[in-house]
């Protein structure tokens, strides 16, 4: 979040405010808050404020984490979830970028497909999960399908926006130098829409992670979501939290990675 807010600020504001103080101060406050929370969490069950059976404790979660990585077939489950995630995500990229380009460059295609696309984007694609299970079984396929459906729309719509909202002044300039349609596409539209495409990818990451986990929670025989379900029904709060943390760390890391590329590419837009 922080980096996006920083780039959104006008340059003057950034120079005038004492921004060099801010990161360290906010980091300090953040660290204090986290430590305070952990301490409170640790002592709360002992003081009788909460029932430790439902809340676990940081130390227990930490020990459970070591246990999970050592003895819980973690890599096996992680591999299945990662396979579902990347299969669905890569499929989504392969389909959505060409589709986004087509929609962004052809008005007719846009008029034709834009309304149903919008509807599908807004509707939670997870509602299709039961149908995917009926169609595709209970193996990886329905989860891949749900990941695909979750990831495909943000990428299509953002690519489309990036292409169709190209600055007309750039197009006119390119034409004045005799640029062909192909030249305009490769030299103006593609580089110009890259930031929007990356925004689409970033939004897609969150939806894809959600798709994998919910898909596995719904019906599966293995995977991180399966483990979550397992420890949920067994009331193993400590292990449940370990898996939940792993999922959010994965989604967070990927999002931050895409955002850092995005910010780099978008640098030139800040003015």
């Amino acid at each position, binding site marked *: 979040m922080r980096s996006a807010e920083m780039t959104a600020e006008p340059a003057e504001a950034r120079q005038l405010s004492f921004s060099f103080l801010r990161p360290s101060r906010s980091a300090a406050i953040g660290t204090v808050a986290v430590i305070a929370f952990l301490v409170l969490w640790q002592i709360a069950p002992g003081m009788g404020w909460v029932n430790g059976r439902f809340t676990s404790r940081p130390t227990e979660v930490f020990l459970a984490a070591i246990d999970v990585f050592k003895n819980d077939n973690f890599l096996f489950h992680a591999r299945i979830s990662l396979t579902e995630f990347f299969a669905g995500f890569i499929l989504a990229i392969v389909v959505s970028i060409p589709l986004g380009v087509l929609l962004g460059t052809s008005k007719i295609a846009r008029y034709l497909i834009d309304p149903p696309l919008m509807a599908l984007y807004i509707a939670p694609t997870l509602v299709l999960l039961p149908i995917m299970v009926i169609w595709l079984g209970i193996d990886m396929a329905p989860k891949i399908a749900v990941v695909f459906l979750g990831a495909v729309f943000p990428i299509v719509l953002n690519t489309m926006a990036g292409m169709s909202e190209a*600055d007309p*002044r750039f197009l*006119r*300039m390119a034409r004045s*130098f*005799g640029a062909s349609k192909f*030249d305009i596409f490769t*030299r103006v539209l593609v580089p110009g829409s*890259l930031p929007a495409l990356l925004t689409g990818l970033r939004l897609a990451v969150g939806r894809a992670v959600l798709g994998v986990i919910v898909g596995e929670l719904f019906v599966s025989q293995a995977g991180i979501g399966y483990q979550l379900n397992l420890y949920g029904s067994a009331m193993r709060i400590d292990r449940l939290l370990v898996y939940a943390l792993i999922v959010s760390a994965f989604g967070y890391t990927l999002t931050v990675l895409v955002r850092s590329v995005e910010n780099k590419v978008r640098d*030139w837009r800040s003015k």
Partner: protein
Amino acid sequence: MAQIEIRDLGIDYRKPKSNEVFSAVDNVALSVEKGEFVTIVGSSGCGKSTLLMAVAGLVSLTRGSIQIDGKQISGPGPDRAVVFQEASLLPWRSVRGNVKFGLEMQRWNGGDLNERAMQMIRLVGLGRFSDYHPHQLSGGMRQRVNIARALAVDPQVLLMDEPFGALDAQTREIMGTELLRIWERDKKTALFVTHDIDEAIFLADKIVVMGRNPGHIKEVIKVDLPRPRNEAILDSEDFHELRKRLRAHLAEDMSSMQLVQEVA
């Protein structure tokens, strides 16, 4: 024969909502000799930019014809290059990348692209900044890049659409002098659109004064100020005379516009 020959030019637009047709430019005839620096001046809405874009081949003609070196134009061509207003530099390309853009589009085969681009960048005085990106440059520097990009493709005719319109008065004056310095080297035929009276006089061999409704040429004024020019001529007697004459023209246009607004 003149290098640019515009005859009976008319350009109509259809308003997108009402489908009403209106004339941006009508009955325009103009000859520009080879090596002549012609400025086109007029208040906003007089069709001066439309006229320039028509010569660039970016706007289709409704009536009349435009010939360059005796050949009817039918779109943009390598014989012409345009210096646009601000914000026509590709923000993801460096200064050198931007200057190379036109060369790439025209499949330049006059030697090394990089070397050609660097020559032009040095010519406009940005040698040290070739790896900078547009957002790191001032408005004046960006327009130098814009000029370098147009000159790089070695056009017969240089078309400039208010290139200094977004700059402050001081920078604008410096850029005008710079432009003349560069232009003096090979005296390419130049068409320069502006709404700034001093700029129009300072640069020109010939000033085309345009009026509105529809855009038409009111008067063509010869400028006989000696070249090479510098800021000193801004204070000369002849310059004052020309300024007075142009002001009268534009004031006439403004008052007629106010009248229309009052009636409406």
